[in-house]
């Protein structure tokens, strides 16, 4: 398989994943996307192994490593800031002990109701959103650093040949 075909197949895979995600939301079936993601990742590695031309070498590996380290160096600060903010809610009572659950499920106070299965789902949803936000942050940071180091190590250099 040619390199350009590989990129085309990956684009189609991403579109399929987005479609499954939309379907999962429509059907309220998280299992759909939870299965589709690992299958998609496995398909990615399978398709990548079929590329005949080298798409990875020591230079691209070095770019990846540098971008990963830079991403980690910035991300841990963002992660720490988010976590320490959450910890404040956890320790806002003496000895960190929370008051009993509030009678209303969707109370606007910072005290989250505990032990209420009906009310727990939206809070899990919010937790998922925070996680997705952090994941998006990692991806954006990584992409930015990767572009920076790729440019530094001649990824888009043009040559007369």
């Amino acid at each position, binding site marked *: 398989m040619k390199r350009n075909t590989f990129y085309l197949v990956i684009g189609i895979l991403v579109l399929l994943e987005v479609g499954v995600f939309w379907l999962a939301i429509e059907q309220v079936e998280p299992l759909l996307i939870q299965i589709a993601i690992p299958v998609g990742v496995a398909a990615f590695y399978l398709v990548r192994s079929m590329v005949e*031309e*080298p*798409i*990875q*070498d*020591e*230079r*691209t590996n070095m770019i990846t490593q540098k971008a990963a380290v830079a991403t980690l160096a910035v991300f841990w600060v963002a992660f720490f800031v988010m976590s320490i903010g959450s910890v404040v809610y956890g320790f806002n009572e003496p000895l960190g002990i929370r008051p009993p659950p509030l009678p209303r499920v969707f109370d606007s106070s910072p005290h989250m109701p505990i032990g209420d299965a009906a009310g727990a789902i939206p809070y899990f949803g919010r937790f998922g959103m925070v996680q997705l936000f952090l994941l998006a942050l990692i991806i954006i940071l990584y992409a930015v650093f990767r572009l920076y180091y790729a440019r*530094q*190590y*001649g*990824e888009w*250099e043009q*040559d007369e*040949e």
Partner: protein
Amino acid sequence: MKNKIKVYRAMHDITQEALANKLGVTRQTILAIEKGKYVPSLDLAFKIARHFGVTIEEVFTYEEP
């Protein structure tokens, strides 16, 4: 680090793509080395020199930064 890969390529009439395929790297890596944007590992430097049938010093010259 200066190098004469382009000169040796011309002498052997080989393209960046062909050299890259023979060495198992991408064409961009050969281009980046030629332009001095990337310093290859010792392993790759030896492979390049060996491919042209010369010593590593004949292809690469160290320069004080």
